[in-house]
């Protein structure tokens, strides 16, 4: 529908300044699509502005953004539309000009390219001056915003390269309202991965990472806990600092899948991780404690 607004503006005598910007990186176009649709990452990722959702539905997201511009905090209501998988369209009106933004998510060699076209619609000489300064501000702002968004896309690019995982949302359009729940699990483990590992839980044991399946078994005080190494929501990397951590992208609280005292004998305790079932066992043999992690086929 933003097409019709541009047509209307052209018909009613508005002129525009155009600005084209692009970002290339080693991730999939799905990742930049998701990044643009995602409505919850703003308070965690973007430090330069804050966001307040006014209305969100399956095709649109209207939010209020507050941004520092010209030494003042500026509120702008931005309308976002996501009707086709490969594009996002935006409309915003402030300071007497209307800004129309069209972003396309395309493949580029092995990675992805995001092409963004800005059109600053203005009328009159003062309008031209405002549009011109908005163009300069946008150029500067784009770099800042992308530098904050880039690590998210890059992380997902790395995850894709392992060929062990996929994202549930890849098949469909990532609708703005589907991104509202940080407790959704969007990262799925591929089938065909075989894992059955047995290891000793002795005094030297601190932690063991299972890279293939993104799991970490670690010791905390007298307990063994099993945690994911990536957030099951959208795949953010999780550090091993402590067991009560929050995801840096959307603030999801990460809770251990299983925890048990060293020495407890565990028989086939099951837990779900990245849409697959894992089995954990712990037993004693010849005075030693063993632990076994298995991915159920």
């Amino acid at each position, binding site marked *: 529908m933003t097409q019709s607004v541009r047509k209307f503006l052209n018909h*009613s005598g508005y002129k525009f300044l155009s600005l084209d910007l692009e970002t290339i990186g080693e991730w999939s176009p799905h990742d930049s699509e998701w990044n643009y649709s995602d*409505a919850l990452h703003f308070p965690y990722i973007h430090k330069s502005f804050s966001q*307040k959702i006014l209305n969100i539905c*399956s095709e649109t997201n209207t939010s209020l953004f*507050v941004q520092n511009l010209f030494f003042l905090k500026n509120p702008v*209501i931005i309308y976002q539309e996501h009707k086709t998988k490969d594009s996002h369209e935006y409309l915003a009106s402030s300071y007497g000009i209307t800004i129309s933004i069209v972003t396309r998510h395309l493949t580029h060699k092995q990675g992805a390219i995001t092409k963004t076209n800005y059109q600053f*619609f203005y009328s009159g000489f003062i309008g031209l001056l405002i549009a011109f300064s908005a163009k300069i501000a946008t150029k500067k702002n784009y770099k800042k915003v992308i530098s904050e968004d880039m690590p998210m896309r890059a992380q997902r690019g790395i995850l894709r390269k392992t060929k062990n995982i996929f994202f549930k949302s890849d098949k469909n359009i990532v609708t703005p*309202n589907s991104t509202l729940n940080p407790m959704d699990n969007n990262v799925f483990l591929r089938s065909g991965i075989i894992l059955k590992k047995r290891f000793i839980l002795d005094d030297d044991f601190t932690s063991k990472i299972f890279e293939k399946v993104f799991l970490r078994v670690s010791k905390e005080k007298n307990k063994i806990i099993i945690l994911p190494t990536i957030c099951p929501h959208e795949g953010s990397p999780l550090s091993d600092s402590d067991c009560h951590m929050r995801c840096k992208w959307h603030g999801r609280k990460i809770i251990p899948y299983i925890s048990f005292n060293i020495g407890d004998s565990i028989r086939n305790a099951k837990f779900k991780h990245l849409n697959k079932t894992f089995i954990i066992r712990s037993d004693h043999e010849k005075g030693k404690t063993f632990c076994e992690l298995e991915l159920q086929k």
Partner: protein
Amino acid sequence: MKRERLSVSLSSKNNKDYLAVNLPKNLLAEGVVFKSFTLSSQGKFLGKDVDWNFKDFLHPKLVHKQLDQTHIYTTDFTTTQIFFQKILFFRIPFQVIQYDTGPNSLCYCFSFFNFIVCIETSYETRNQNTKVKTKYNIGSLNKLLLNLAFPLLKIVFTKNYRILMSEDMPLRLRKGQLRSWGFTFKTDTKEKISYHDCNKITTKNINFINKKTEDISKKIKYVYKENKICSFYIGRSDNFGLRGELRDNKVFVFPRICNHEGACLDNTDLKGGLISCPWHGKKFKPIFIHDLISGHSFNFIYSKKNYLLKFYMSKGYEKINVSIS
């Protein structure tokens, strides 16, 4: 702005749409300072008519002369538009999101320059009389700037409100008039009018009464204008009333009510043989065209009734006799 979980301030209407609730209060908690003032209007109509008037996003183009409008997106509970308004020498775009905040209340929100404006409208009906309260909340993150600009903004918004109301009020009063005649609307049975109910001019929202309530078979004098154009009205502006236009010895008979939302079609221009509704621009063809050279009386069927019109001539046309059976 404070960082908090967003789900706190969002409410889901149908698992598809999420809306910010209590907007000015919510923003207040995040550091936005508000100053507000309330304007009100009232009249003999129902709250539903006010609700419809606010949600109907097709009428501004025709009804509000100083506004230009382009529509962006509509869901059941929200609509986003860009309004263009002339202020001094500038034509300024306002991107407005309007949404339903519950039965009998609405919220408008837009940002301009350094300000966020949340307009809360609520309406209350007592004895067929509805009072509409409109609260303007002007907010900014800069308290000094807000204090400086508020008196001027209040004048501008109040003036604008008066203009908008003077144009909107006839629409509401007309609906009140139709209700006093016993007409109802299809959207009345709904708990809430959806924005999608207002996006087509082809829908027939008015429920016509098929019983004639008053006898309109009588002699009518018609309006004479410079010996050429004259128009006459039969009955009242409901589904039995008729509007006649005389052009070059031909009589064009038009309806007096729009079947879309019930607008009165009396004072609209005849262009290219058609009249168009003053509210949404729905076009109406004549019900019947008669050439007076072939005879001074003619009959036709309208609203399942047989109309017989007789023209008496002396020094031009003077009298029309209408009988309905």
